[in-house]
C-alpha cells in the first residue's frame, strides 16, 4: 500500500436477529426451510395486509444499542423505503429513516495491542427481503419469500476505520457481541450477517474526506478485508495517475478478487422515505430501556482487557478465552473457586480442553466437565499432589463424567510420591543405569538432567514429584 495515502472506511452491517418469528407477522424466522413455506399474506405483502411489530425485535436491537454505547430513542417510528425489486414483495422495505432506535454510540475494538474506538452512527430495525435463485434452465429467476420479514438490525459506523485490519477487528467484535447477547446466530455462511463497505482514500495529513465508493456483495469478514485493500489500491492508483474518484456503487467479486461498477451516482435511487402509516409511533419506557441495559453481560473486549490486567494473561490468551461466551463463563467460574492460578486455568482450557472441543465440534457447556472439578484437578497439580501428566489422566475422566478428582487420584493411585526415602532409591537406581549421562553432566552438559528426571518419572510410573526428583538428581551427582 502506498504510504502517502490514508484509507478511510465506514461499514454498514446487517445482522438477522434470532427471534422466534418474523418482524411483522407470526411466520417462523428459520433458515433453510423448504422454499415458500414460511410465508403468509403479511410477509408476502398481499393486498390488504398489515404489519404488526414484534416486541422481541425492539428489545434485541436495544441490547445491541447498549452494547455499542448508543443513545436509545425510546419514541420512534418506522418508515417505508420505496423501490422495486422482485425480492421485495410490497415494493417497499419497512425500515427506519430519521429516528433510528439507537444512535450516537461507539465500539472499542482491539487492533494489535491497541484499543481503537470506532463511532457508531446508528442502529435501526428493518425487514429482510426474500431470495432470488437464478436458474438458466428456466430462462428466469425464482423468488423464494421465506426470508421476507426476517428481522434485521443495520449498524452504521462512522468513517473512523483506517485500515482493513481495523475493519476486520470491528466486524469480529460485532460478531462476538451478537453472539454474547444471544440476539443473532451471526452465521456468515447463512448470510445472517452481511456488510456494505464504504471506502475512500486521502493524502496522509489531510482532514477532508475523499470521495467514497460503496461496495456491495461483501459476504464475509475476510472478504471485507480483501475488498477494502483492493478498493483502496484501486483508488490510489487512479489518483496517482492524475484521475478522480467518482462516487459510485461497485460490486465485490470475492472469487476473482476484483470489484466492478454496479451503478453510478446518477442512477442513485430516490427511495422516497416516509413514515409507514400502517405502524404508529412506538415507545419503550425509560424503565424498560434501563432494564435491558442491566441485562447486558460484560462484553468480549472488556473481558479481554480485564483478563490481561486482573489475571496477567497475555492479550492473545485473553482474547481467545473471551471470544466465546461459554468458554469465558467457564474460565471465570473456575477462577472464582480461588483454588488455582488463573494462568494455569487458561493454559488447561486453551490447551487440552480446546483440543477436545475442536475434535468434538462442541461448546464447553456440552461437556460433563464442571468448573469445580477442573479447579480441583488443577489445584491438585499446584499442591503437587499429582503431576502434570497425572492431571491429564484425571482430565480425560472428568471431561466425560462428573467425578471428584480426589477420588480418581485415590482409585487410580495417581498421587505423587514425595517421600524422600522412596525417591532416593529410584534416583540411585537411575544414576547407576545411566553412567554415560552422569559423565556428560559432570563434563558440563547439564541439560541431560531433564533426561535423567524423565527416567526417574518413568521408574516411578509417573507418580514421582518431578521438582523433588530434579533436585535430588543434581545433589546425588554432585556428591559423586
Amino acid at each position, binding site marked *: 500500500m502506498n504510504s502517502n495515502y490514508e484509507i478511510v472506511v465506514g461499514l454498514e452491517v446487517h445482522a438477522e436477529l434470532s427471534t422466534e418469528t418474523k418482524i411483522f407477522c407470526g411466520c417462523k424466522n428459520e433458515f433453510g426451510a423448504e422454499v415458500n413455506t414460511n410465508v403468509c*399474506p403479511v410477509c*408476502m*405483502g*398481499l*393486498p*390488504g*395486509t*398489515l*404489519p*404488526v*411489530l414484534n416486541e422481541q425485535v425492539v428489545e434485541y436491537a436495544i441490547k445491541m444499542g447498549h452494547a455499542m454505547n448508543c443513545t436509545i430513542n425510546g419514541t420512534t417510528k418506522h418508515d*417505508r423505503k*420505496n423501490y*422495486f425489486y*422482485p425480492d421485495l*414483495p*410490497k*415494493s*417497499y422495505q419497512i425500515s427506519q429513516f430519521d429516528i433510528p432506535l439507537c444512535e450516537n454510540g461507539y465500539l472499542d475494538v482491539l487492533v494489535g495491542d491497541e484499543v481503537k474506538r470506532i463511532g457508531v452512527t446508528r442502529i435501526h430495525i428493518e425487514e429482510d427481503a426474500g431470495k432470488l435463485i437464478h436458474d438458466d434452465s428456466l430462462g428466469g429467476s425464482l*423468488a423464494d419469500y421465506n426470508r421476507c420479514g426476517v428481522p434485521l438490525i443495520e449498524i452504521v459506523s462512522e468513517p473512523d476505520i483506517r485500515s482493513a485490519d481495523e475493519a476486520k477487528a470491528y466486524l469480529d467484535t460485532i460478531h462476538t457481541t451478537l453472539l454474547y447477547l444471544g440476539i443473532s446466530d451471526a452465521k456468515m455462511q447463512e448470510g445472517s450477517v452481511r456488510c456494505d463497505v464504504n471506502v475512500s482514500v486521502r493524502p496522509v495529513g489531510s482532514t477532508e474526506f475523499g470521495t467514497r465508493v460503496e461496495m456491495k456483495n461483501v459476504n464475509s469478514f475476510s472478504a471485507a478485508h480483501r475488498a477494502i485493500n483492493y478498493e483502496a489500491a484501486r483508488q490510489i492508483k487512479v489518483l496517482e495517475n492524475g484521475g478522480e474518484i467518482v462516487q459510485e456503487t461497485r460490486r465485490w467479486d470475492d472469487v476473482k478478487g476484483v470489484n466492478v461498477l454496479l451503478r453510478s451516482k446518477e442512477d442513485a435511487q*430516490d427511495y*422516497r*422515505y*416516509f*413514515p409507514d*402509516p*400502517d*405502524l*404508529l409511533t412506538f415507545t419503550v419506557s425509560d424503565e424498560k430501556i434501563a432494564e435491558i441495559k442491566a441485562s447486558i453481560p460484560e462484553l468480549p473486549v472488556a473481558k479481554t482487557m480485564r483478563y490481561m490486567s486482573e489475571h496477567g494473561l497475555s492479550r492473545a490468551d485473553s482474547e481467545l478465552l473471551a471470544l466465546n461466551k461459554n468458554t469465558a463463563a467457564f474460565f471465570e467460574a473456575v477462577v472464582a473457586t480461588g483454588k488455582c492460578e488463573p494462568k494455569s486455568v487458561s493454559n488447561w482450557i486453551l490447551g487440552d480442553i480446546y483440543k477436545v472441543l475442536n475434535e468434538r465440534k462442541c461448546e464447553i457447556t456440552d461437556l460433563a466437565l464442571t468448573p469445580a472439578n477442573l479447579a480441583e484437578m488443577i489445584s491438585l497439580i499446584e499442591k503437587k499432589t499429582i503431576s502434570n501428566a497425572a492431571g491429564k489422566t484425571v482430565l480425560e475422566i472428568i471431561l466425560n463424567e462428573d467425578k471428584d478428582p480426589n477420588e480418581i487420584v485415590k482409585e487410580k493411585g495417581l498421587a505423587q510420591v514425595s517421600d524422600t526415602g522412596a525417591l532416593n532409591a529410584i534416583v540411585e537406581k537411575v544414576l547407576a543405569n545411566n553412567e554415560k549421562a552422569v559423565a556428560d553432566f559432570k563434563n558440563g552438559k547439564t541439560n541431560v538432567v531433564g533426561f535423567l528426571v524423565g527416567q526417574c518419572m518413568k521408574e516411578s510410573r509417573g507418580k514421582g514429584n518431578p521438582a523433588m526428583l530434579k533436585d535430588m538428581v543434581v545433589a546425588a551427582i554432585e556428591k559423586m
Partner: protein
Amino acid sequence: MDKLYSLTAGQMKDLLDKREVTAVEITKSVIENIERTDKEIQAYITYNFDQALQQAAGADEKRAKGEQLGELAGIPVALKDNMCTKNLRTTAGSKILGNFVPPYNATVVEKLLADGAVIIGKTTCDEFAMGSSGENSAFQVARNPWDTTRVPGGSSSGSAATVAASQVPLALGSDTGGSIRQPACLTGIVGMKPTYGAVSRYGLIAYGSSLDQIGPMARTVDDTAMLFKAICGRDKMDATSKDYTYTPYGDSVKGMKLGLPKEYFGEGISAEVKEKIYAAVETLKEQGAEIVEVSLPSTDYALSAYYIIACAEASSNLGRFDGVKYGFTGSDRSSLENLYVSSRSEGFGEEVQRRILLGTYVLSSGFYDAYYKKAKMLQKVIRKEFEDALKLCDAIITPLNPTTAFKIGEKSDDPVAMWAGDICTVTLNIAGLPGINVPCGFDSNNMPVGFQVLGRKFSESTLLTIAKCYENTVGGFAVKEF
C-alpha cells in the same frame, strides 16, 4: 312473503326471530331481485350467490337448533370489492386485480361471517377507491337508482347503489376522503365513516392507509348502527386499530349543542343544498338542540393536505402491483423492468396512474418537505382546530357534498373539478374523526341531498343519536322503489 328483499335489516331480523321467514327465503328473494335489477344498477362486480345460500342455510340450521346467533344471522350484506374475501375474487375495481382470489378474509369479513351474516357479493367501486363518481371502475359504472343516467357517487358506488335500490339492506363501504358518506348522500341513504381505528383495516386493499376506514351503509339509522356494531373493535392484525366498545345511542337531541362552521357554507356549495341543510338544522333546533357557530379556519387547505397525504401513501401502497406475484401481468416479459412497466401501465387506469404520479412527486427527493411533510404538519393543525371546535359543541353539522348527483360523464375529464367536490368530506379523514350522512330531502331534479354530522373521536353513538332524532322527526327517509 312479498318483496322480502326490500325489508330493512331490523325488519328481517324480527321476522327471522319470530320464525316467520327463513334466511334462505330472504336470500333467495334478494338474489332474484338482484338478477332482475342489476343489469341496470350495475352494483356488483362479483356475485356470491351459491355461497350466500349456503351461509343462509347455515344460519337457519343454527337457529333451528337453538344455537347462539349473532345479530346479523341470516341477513344479507354486500361488500365493497376492496375487502379481501377468501376464495372469492377481489378486484378493488381494477384490471390489475381482475383475477385476484385472496387466500384470506379481511377482519370485517371474518366478523360478519362469525355473526352469521350472508355475503351477497362484491360491489362496484372506483379503481382502488380513487374517485367520487364511480366512473373510475375498470369494470362498469354503477348507477344512481334515483336517476340511472346519474352517478351514485364514489368510491363506494355499488355499495350505495345496491342499498339505495333495496337490493340488500346492508353494505360495507370504505372511506378515505368521503367514499362512504358522499355516495350515501348522492343516493339518499345513511353512511357512516367511523373514527380512524374504530374498525380494523386488515384485509382492506389500501388506498391512503392513514385515512382509510371501513364503515356501514344502510337505509335507516338503526340498520347502520347494527352493521357498525358487528364490525367495530380492536384487531390484533391492525396496529392502528383501537380498543373500542360500541355504546348504544338514543333519539333525542334535547340540550345538545350543534356547531355550524361558517367555512363549510361558502360559495362552492349550491344554494339548493344549503337551503335543505339549513332546514334540517332548523328541525334539529325544534327538537331541542342548541345551534352554535364554530370556526375551522384551515378548511380551505384541507383538500391539498388530503390529496398529498392520500396520494403519497397510495403511490407506495400500489407499488406491490407489479405483475409478478398476483393479478394482471403485463404483455412484455422481455426484462424485469419491462414486466413492471407493462403490467402497471396496462393494469392501472388513468386516474390511478395520475394519483401514483402525484404521490411519487410529493415524496421525491427535494419535494418531501414542501409537500408531504407540510401536509402532515397541516394535519396536526386541522386536528387541533376540530378538537377546539368540538369543545364548544357536541357535534358539528355541515353540507356533505356541494351538489347533488351529476350526470355520468359530466366531470370525468376534469380531475381538478372532480377532486374539488371532496371539500366537505376530506377534513374528517384528515382529522381521523367520525362522520355520518343523513338524508334531508331532494333537490329540484328530485335527487337526494344529505347533511353531515361529525363529532369527537369515538363519538359514533352521538352521531347516531342525532341522525336517529332527525329520522324520527321527518318520519323516515324516502326509499326508491326499483
